[in-house]
């Protein structure tokens, strides 16, 4: 309904209208009022302005009003009798004007179109050129096109709708339901920028010598520690040679060796040799 009001085609009682009503001068066919019976209005019938407004607001525009008049009179839309239709249309328009309804411009445009078609039909036949065709054709086409859509809109209105004809089944989740939390995403650049942040903040950081080359050593250090941690509780050590993987080649051996030296320096591991030329065993420091 509110859309109707905003529509420029609306016909509304002018504000501050002092008209208490209107005495109608001629018979006009009246519309279905909210689906109720057709009001065939006697000549002297007094129609309250509110009711008129409701009736006139039922029309979606000049095409709708024309279609109503045609259907009401059981006229053939394909052989449109322009003269009576124009008369009736004008009566409605005059009525709207009479009661100071704010008349959409489209109604007046249609009035002039009808008047023009009527005058062209009144011209002597020979004055109309052959190829000009029926002056009503364009209007008839528009009326048909509009009626198709009017009917389609009515059909759509009757389709089963959600919350009116169909209802969606809703089911609650179990009490133990916990939504899955997606892990936050981290960019490698963020990680590096975080570290740069620390470096900038910490003057003493120069001692820490973080460089690309040392990383493989540090990684190996972590590997060795993890290996020792996971070693059998009864034999909590690793043979020195087991820490090396020959497949890694010379550089791999160097990295492992540097890692072991660094771990010894930081007192993170101990190396023991039980006999001369015996296997060197690497273990975690004895617990104090």
């Amino acid at each position, binding site marked *: 309904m509110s859309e109707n009001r905003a529509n*420029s085609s609306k016909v509304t009682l002018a504000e501050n209208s002092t008209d208490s009503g209107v005495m109608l001068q001629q018979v006009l066919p009246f519309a279905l009022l909210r689906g109720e019976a057709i009001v065939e209005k006697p000549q002297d019938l007094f129609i309250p302005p509110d009711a008129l407004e409701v009736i006139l607001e039922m029309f979606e525009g000049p095409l*709708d009003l024309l279609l109503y008049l045609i259907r009401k009179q059981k006229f053939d839309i394909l052989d449109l009798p322009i003269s009576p239709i124009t008369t009736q249309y004008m009566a409605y328009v005059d009525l709207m004007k009479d009661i100071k309804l704010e008349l959409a411009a489209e109604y007046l445009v*249609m009035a002039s179109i009808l008047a023009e078609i009527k005058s062209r039909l009144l011209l002597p036949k020979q004055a109309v050129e052959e190829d000009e065709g029926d002056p009503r054709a364009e209007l008839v086409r528009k009326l048909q096109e509009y009626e198709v859509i009017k009917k389609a809109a009515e059909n759509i209105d009757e389709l089963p709708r*959600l*919350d*009116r004809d*169909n209802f969606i089944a809703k089911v609650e989740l179990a009490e133990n339901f916990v939504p899955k939390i997606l892990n936050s995403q981290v960019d490698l650049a963020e990680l590096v920028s975080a570290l740069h942040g620390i470096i900038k903040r910490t003057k003493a950081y120069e001692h820490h010598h973080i460089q690309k080359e040392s990383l493989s050593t540090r990684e190996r250090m972590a590997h060795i520690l993890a290996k020792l941690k996971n070693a059998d509780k009864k034999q909590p050590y690793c043979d020195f040679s087991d820490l090396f993987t020959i497949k890694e080649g010379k550089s791999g051996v160097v990295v492992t060796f540097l890692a072991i030296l660094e771990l010894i320096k930081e007192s993170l591991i101990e190396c023991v040799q039980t006999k001369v030329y015996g296997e060197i065993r690497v273990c975690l420091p004895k617990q104090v």
Partner: protein
Amino acid sequence: MNPDKIRHKDIDDAKLKRLVEAALFIAEKPLSVQLLKRDFLIEYRVSNLRIRDIIIAIQADYKGRGVELNKVASGYRFQTPAELSEDLAHLYKEKAPKYSRAILETLALIAYKQPITRGEIEDIRGVAVSSNIIKTLSDRNWIKTVGQKEVPGRPVLYASTQEFLDYFSLTSLDQLPALMSMEDFSG
């Protein structure tokens, strides 16, 4: 992440059926086979065909029950059958919005004549189309813009959406009621 890496677990038909059934009931919107796979079955190795078979089995299970599994434009959803509408509707009558003829006619034009410009709608209806009508239809997600017409002013072209079809329980535009034919005009 590689989805093939995730989809590794096997699932038997009984479990798959329970899961699909539950998913369809708790989802906020209709679920397509693709959505079911992506949102509920990501951990499982299961083919589209198998999901479709399971859906057909569930549809059969719910024949003649209080709810049925229907296909609408954007997927499958459980809803009450038409036969029960009358008994269920009276509680909800006030909730269902009514739409003005202006809105319905504009919607009909967009649905049947899409893509269409506002000017073309005004031409056929014979009156101006207020911005409120377009806004109401857009807010409901029933219409969307699908480009601009290459004529002076490059007006926006409107089309209907899947939500529009879902709302009216249709699977596609060709399920819309047929338009009046020329014979309907005589008399």
